C-alpha cells in the first residue's frame, strides 16, 4: 500500500503555487545540452526524466550567488546605513535530487553555528523540498560512497519515487511535506522498488586518514597539476558555501553584498602583503579535499560532500573530486 501522484498532479501543484505568486524551482532544460535548476514559469518547463541531474545545485535558492546584506547612503560627509527587507516569498523546490537535498542540513549548520544568518534561515523556513529519487546514475555519481543513496531521505520534505512513466510513489518525510501533499495523493497497491545506486568507490574514513597525514605528499602536486583554477566545481557543488563580502555602489549609495567565492581561485587566500599561503593550484586542490573530508568533519561531525558528481561533470579538464578520492582509495598515492 502506498500513495501516488501523477505528472498531471505535479503540474497542478506547480500551477497552483505559481498562481499564488509563490516561487517554484526545478530541473529544466534551458538549452540543448544544458539542464539546470531554475525558477519555473510553468509546469511544462519542469523536466522529470531522462537525465542524470542538473549541472547546478539547489543551494542557490537558499544561499544565492549574490545577496545584498544592507544598504548605505552617502550623506554629506557622513554615511547612513539601512536594513534591507528579508525574503518573504514561499518557494517550492520540486524534483530535486536527493544528493542536493542532503546538502541542505549541512548548509543549515554552516549558516547557524556561530551566528544565525537571518536571510538564509528565513529562506529555509519558506522552502519546501520535494525530491525525486534517482532512477539512473553515471560514472561521476558516488552518493553511495559518502553514505547516501538514490533515495536518501535527508533534507527532503517529500520524496517521489518513480513507478511507471508519469506516475510516482510519494513518501512524505516531514509535516511540511505532508501538508503540501494533502489532498493530492491517490492510494495505490504499487510500491516502488528501491533504485540501485552506483557502486561504492572509496571509503571516506580512509580519505580522511590520508589527508590528515599527507599534507606535504607529492600526490597533491601531480593531482593538481592540470587544474586551471576556475570555480566551476565549487559553484556547482551543493555543499560548497564560501562567500566574499564587498561594498558595491556608486558615488551616492550602495550596499554591502555577499557573493559566492571559491577556494580554487588564486586570489582566495591572497594577503594584502602579496603573500599567498596557498600559492599554487595543487595546494588549492588539497584544500578542497581536506576541507570536505577532514576539516569540516572535524568541526561538524560529517563530511561536506553528497556524492553528486557535479565537480567531475563540470570540470573543464576532467578532474573533479571523484578521481582524486578513488585514487586515494586505491592507494595509488603510495
Amino acid at each position, binding site marked *: 500500500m502506498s500513495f501516488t501522484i501523477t505528472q498531471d498532479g505535479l503540474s497542478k501543484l506547480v500551477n497552483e503555487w505559481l498562481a499564488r505568486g509563490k516561487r517554484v524551482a526545478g530541473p529544466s532544460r*534551458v*538549452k*540543448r*545540452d*544544458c539542464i*539546470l535548476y*531554475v525558477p519555473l514559469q510553468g509546469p511544462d518547463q519542469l523536466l522529470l526524466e531522462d537525465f542524470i541531474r542538473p*549541472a*547546478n545545485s539547489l543551494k*542557490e535558492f537558499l544561499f544565492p*550567488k*549574490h545577496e545584498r546584506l544592507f544598504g548605505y547612503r552617502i550623506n554629506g560627509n557622513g554615511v547612513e546605513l539601512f536594513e534591507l527587507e528579508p525574503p518573504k516569498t514561499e518557494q517550492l523546490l520540486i524534483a530535486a535530487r536527493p544528493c542536493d537535498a542532503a546538502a541542505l542540513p549541512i548548509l543549515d549548520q554552516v549558516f547557524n553555528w556561530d551566528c544565525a544568518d537571518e536571510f538564509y534561515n528565513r529562506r529555509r523556513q519558506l522552502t519546501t523540498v520535494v525530491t525525486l529519487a534517482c532512477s539512473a546514475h553515471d560514472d561521476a555519481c558516488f552518493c553511495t560512497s559518502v553514505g547516501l543513496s538514490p533515495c536518501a531521505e535527508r533534507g527532503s520534505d517529500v520524496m517521489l519515487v518513480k513507478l511507471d512513466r508519469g506516475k510516482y510513489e510519494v513518501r512524505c518525510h516531514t509535516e511540511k511535506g505532508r501538508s503540501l501533499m494533502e489532498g493530492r495523493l491517490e492510494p495505490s497497491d504499487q510500491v516502488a522498488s528501491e533504485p540501485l545506486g552506483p557502486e561504492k568507490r572509496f571509503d571516506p574514513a580512509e580519505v580522511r586518514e590520508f589527508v590528515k597525514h599527507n599534507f606535504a605528499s607529492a600526490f597533491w*602536486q*601531480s593531482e*593538481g*597539476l*592540470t587544474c*586551471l*583554477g*576556475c*570555480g*566551476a566545481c*565549487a*559553484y*556547482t557543488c551543493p555543499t560548497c558555501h564560501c562567500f*566574499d563580502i*564587498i561594498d*558595491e555602489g*556608486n558615488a551616492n549609495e550602495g550596499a554591502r*553584498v555577499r*557573493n*559566492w567565492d*571559491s577556494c580554487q*581561485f588564486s*586570489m582566495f587566500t591572497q594577503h594584502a602583503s602579496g603573500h599567498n599561503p596557498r600559492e*599554487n*593550484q*595543487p595546494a588549492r586542490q588539497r584544500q578542497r579535499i581536506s576541507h570536505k573530508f577532514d576539516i569540516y568533519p572535524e568541526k561538524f561531525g560529517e563530511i561536506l560532500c553528497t556524492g553528486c558528481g557535479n565537480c567531475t561533470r*563540470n*570540470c*573543464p*579538464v*576532467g*578532474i573533479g573530486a571523484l*578521481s582524486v578520492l578513488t585514487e586515494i582509495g586505491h592507494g595509488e598515492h603510495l
Partner: protein
Amino acid sequence: MNEAGQFEPKIVAYVCNWCTYLGADLAGTTRLEYPPNVRIIRLPCTGRIDFNLIVKAFEIGADAVLVSGCHPGDCHYTAGNYHARRRWILFRELLEALGFEMERIHFTWISAAEGRKWQQVVTEITEQTRKLGPYKNLYADTGNGSLPIPEAAPAVDQPAGSEGSLRQRCHQLLADGTVKVVIGYGTGGPVCVTKPADVGRLVWNNQCSSNLTTYLKRQEVRKLGRAAIVVKVCDERALVVLEKESQLDRKDLHVMGMACNGMGQPKCATCDVRVPRFADEVIGEVASVPLAGPPNAAPRGGAALEVLLAKSPAERMACWAREFERCVKCYACRQVCPLCYCERCIVEKNRPTVIDPSPTVKGNFAWHITRAFHLAGRCIGCDECTRACPAGIDLRLLNLSLAKAAEEHFGYRAGINRDVEPLIGAYSLQDKENFIR
C-alpha cells in the same frame, strides 16, 4: 525627469583635452547655446578612452554616450585618435552583437575651432535621445530571447596510428631529455607526462577537442621545465598569438602538431586549417575526407551568428540578458582560455572597480563584454570558454562577432600569420570611420 515630468536625457561625453574640450570652450566663448544635458569628462586624449568607460557610463544610467576627439592628423599626441578609432570599429561590432541601441553611442571628431559643431552635435544628440526616451532596454530581458544554437560538424575518426606514433615520439623526447614534460590528452582530460614510462597515458582520438595551450600560462606546469605540447592546428593559432604577445619563446617549447580530421565540434564545421604549419613535428596525415565547411572559410559564425545578428537589437539584448542571468562568475571561461593570461584579471582590480564582481546581470554584462573585447583580434576560436561554461552560456557568438569584424574591417585573423602585428596596439590611416561624425 524635470519638474514638469518631462524626460531629460543624461548624456556622458568623454572628450579629449586638446581638440573637443577646446571646441566646447569655443562654443562657450562664442555663446552658442545648447541643451544642458551633457556632462563632459575631460581626458588627455581619445587614445585614453577605453571601452570600459563607455560601458560604465551606461551602467550609471546614461541615456547616451558621446566620445569625441581630434580629427585624424590633428592628435596632440600624434596617433591616440587612430588607436581609439580602431578600437571603436571593433567595439561597435561587439555592442551590435549584444543588442545595444547603437543610436545612443556617438563618435565625433570636433576640433578646437569647431565650437559650432560641438553645439550642433550636443543639440542633436540631446534631441535624438529625448525622442528615444530613457534607456530602459539596457541589459533587459524583454522576452523572446533565445540564442541560436550552432550546428556541430559530424565526428570523424582520427588518423589511424597517430596515437602510437605520438606515444613513441614522446617516449623519445622524454628519454633523451629534449623535454621534461609532455602536455597531452589523456582519458578524461589533459595530462602532464613527465616519465617515459607513463606515455601510455597519452591518447589521440576524437575526444581531443580541448586546447592544451592554456597550460603554457600555468606556473605549476612551467616549473616542470621545457615542455612538449600536443596541439591541433586550430590550437596552434594560440601559440602564434602568445608569441606575438611575448608570452612564450618558441625555443622553450616543442610543438607536436597533430594532423586532425575534426573533433565534431561547431568550430570544426568552419575549420579551414587542418595540417600544422609551424609545429616542430607533425604526427599523422589528414584523411582526404572533405571538410564540412568550405575551404578557406573565414571564421565566420556560420548560421548561428547570422541568425543572432538578424534579430532586432532588443531581441539580441534579451538573448544575452537571459544567458548572463545564469552566469555564476566561476570564471571557467577565463581560466580555460589560452589567451587570458593576466596574473591579476581586471575583474579582480578594485581601485577602481571597473567591473562589478557580483554575478548580477549588470556585473555579468560588464564581465562578458570585457572578456570578449579583450580577445578582440586575438581570439582564435577554440571555443573552450563555451565548452567550459557550467551554465551553458554560448560565449562563442561574442568571440565570433569580433572575429568577423576583425576580418571584415582589417582583413585580420588572429594567429594565422606570425609576421603580422597584433590588431590592437596598431592602426592604419585607412581604418574606416564612416560611423564617426
